[in-house]
């Protein structure tokens, strides 16, 4: 069993915390994990990606080869398209619907959506609306993790356990909202 994941977004969107949550849940499951991150200059508002590899056998490369990714998780629709060459022919793309516009020639959003939808397996999630519904507007990333969760080799209960542990120092209401955000995202992806 192996799952290769590309995480995409714009510097500052929290891509590393998304990767960390999935990685920790996988480690808790006894899976081997390698996670390659971006630090430094490109974090300043530029395109960022992280590679996350989960497997029950040896993982050689920290980087996912092109054509090997089972899943792209993107916090931004335009960024999700940047890495489609990594997807294997049976791969899935899960993207947040909300654009992050900090460049002058941002393409028309509908064109981006239609390109995403042209893939055989793609999910676009309204992360901000669902985060609002969860009671915590900051929880958009958790909605995205929920939306990606059906494609992860980790049971949703185990993911929720990890989320709870990671937010252990926060108030109970924050934990509850994050769990709710996760569930809303998961339900949206399955709908």
């Amino acid at each position, binding site marked *: 069993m192996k799952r290769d994941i590309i995480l995409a977004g*714009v*510097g*500052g969107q929290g891509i590393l915390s998304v990767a960390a949550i999935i990685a920790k849940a996988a*480690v*808790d499951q006894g899976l*081997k*994990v*390698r*996670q*390659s*991150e*971006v*630090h*430094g*200059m*490109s*974090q*300043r*508002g*530029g*395109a960022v990606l992280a590679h996350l590899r989960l497997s029950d056998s040896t993982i*050689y*490369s*920290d*980087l996912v*080869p*092109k*054509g*090997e990714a089972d899943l792209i998780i993107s916090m931004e629709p*335009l*960024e999700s*398209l*940047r890495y*489609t*060459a990594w*997807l*294997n*022919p049976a*791969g899935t793309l899960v993207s947040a619907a909300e654009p992050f516009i*900090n*460049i002058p020639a941002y*393409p028309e959003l509908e064109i981006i959506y239609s*390109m995403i939808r*042209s*893939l*055989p397996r793609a999910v676009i999630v309204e992360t901000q609306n669902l985060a609002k519904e969860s009671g915590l507007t900051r929880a958009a990333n958790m909605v995205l993790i929920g939306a990606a969760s059906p494609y992860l080799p980790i049971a949703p*209960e*185990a993911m*929720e*356990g*990890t989320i*709870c*542990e990671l*937010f*252990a*120092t*926060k*108030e*109970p209401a924050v*934990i509850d909202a994050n769990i709710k955000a996760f569930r809303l995202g998961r339900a949206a992806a399955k709908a």
Partner: protein
Amino acid sequence: MEELALLGDEAVALGAIHAGLTAAYGYPGTPSTEIMERLIAEYESGGPKAAWCANEKTALEAALGVSFAGRRAMVTMKHVGLNVAADPFVNGALLGIKGGLVIAVADDPGMHSSQNEQDSRFYAAFALVPCLEPRTQQEAYDLTREAFDISEQFHVPVVLRLVTRLSHARSGVRVSPQRSQNPLSKADKREWMLLPAYARRRYASLLERQAAMLDWSEKHPVNRLEIENRDRNRVVITTGLGGNYYEENLADLKRALQERGGKEPARLHIGAYPLPQNLIRRLCEGAEEILVIEEGQPLVEQKLRGILPQKHIIHGKMDGTLPASGELDPDVIRPALGLPPRPALSIPSLQDGSFALPGRPPQLCNGCPHGDSYATIKLAVEGLESVAITSDIGCYALGATPPYDIPETIVCMGASVNMAKGAADAGIQHAIGVIGDSTFLHSGITPLIDAIASNTPMTLVILDNSIVAMTGCQDTILPSENLSRLVLGLGLNPEHLLQLEAKRSNLEANAELLRKEILYRGVSVVIFKRECIEAIKKRQKIEAAKKAKPACEDRGGQA
């Protein structure tokens, strides 16, 4: 022992602590920063001494002092930092290293966050010291521990060469019990004073120890030779992460070779230097073709090729089989192995180029004080003839991108100061250096001494955001309020020291004041001050965390 998910950098930090580290020093630089961040976090909870220093040279010198006192020390830096520390590094190799001294250098092939791709293995070879090159987070931990032992065994500093993709990748690491620190015990002073008479003896001793170091690397388990039942005619040498990318493609390679009735190539992986010459000779005995896959500049390949004609055909970065620049990855080495690209999904309009995906380069944050400072500089020089603006290393280098587009030079830490002086000496009327507060403290003070000493007509703009921002908001080595006193202490005319708040509402007033200094025919220093917005966020986060209470006791799920 416990398995932890660690960044390569964090694995190095723990490896050092568990090896009985007494003190660690460094200067922030991507991708090395997280080593020291972890060490400082451990120090703050009772671990060994760990601190940022003014620059890499001062860090390495402090570590030498620790080693002289018989105790173990580590220095952390990015590859170009070793240029700054080259003086104590190369001379340190001549000393009789007492307490283990490990120099953890993180190279940045592909220049993710750097100005060049220099390969620190060349520095280790130049200084005649061993180099260890881990390729997994586990090796990063294990080889860091070993590096201290080797340093004490051969009495030399040891280079631990990391690269971005190892430093910034996370994986499970098993740790082993902590060794205690060395007792305080001074080294023999005759081995630590590089007066010519002593230094000659020390250099002879270093040369003499080379054979023992070579013997160590020949026997090192990471230098793995695989020749049994292999194709001995076409062989492969891998180093560092090149080995991982090779192994990633090995299943495909074996399948392709089997179809043609071929066998898996004999292979040598190298991760411990000096280069294991006998292992290389054994691998290449009877070989016709050798493929070298190494992450970084072609160190092994150059050595193999030499200058005179030879019977082997060597493939690698120097004959174009692999790209000569940029980092390796699992895809880029496939053509060298005769493998086609893996099948992948594609979107037709992206593939045929009919839809061009716009790039998203890094840029100054929204509301960044540097943005206001650059806008001020732009306005201040408006209409002036003969202007040169030299800039420096840090977030503010992003002022080179639109809408600012201000810096004309970005070279190395501190270069902005005396490049402005040089430009003025050459006849530029209005030479302006732009440097951040931390970069100024790192390498900007000594050139400013030159400028003040000669009263060159130039303006130095110091962007004081009170933090080392680019590398993730480390504290500046000295607080901001010291900057003005420091500059005045160098002898700057106090009338030409300005301290301005970098704020949009001050734009025009500040620009007018700055313009006056730019027109002044002597040295001016203008400090633009405002806290970095990332630093504000970080500060607020820390304050909030201090107030928060733990929760989440009774929730289900896995531990």
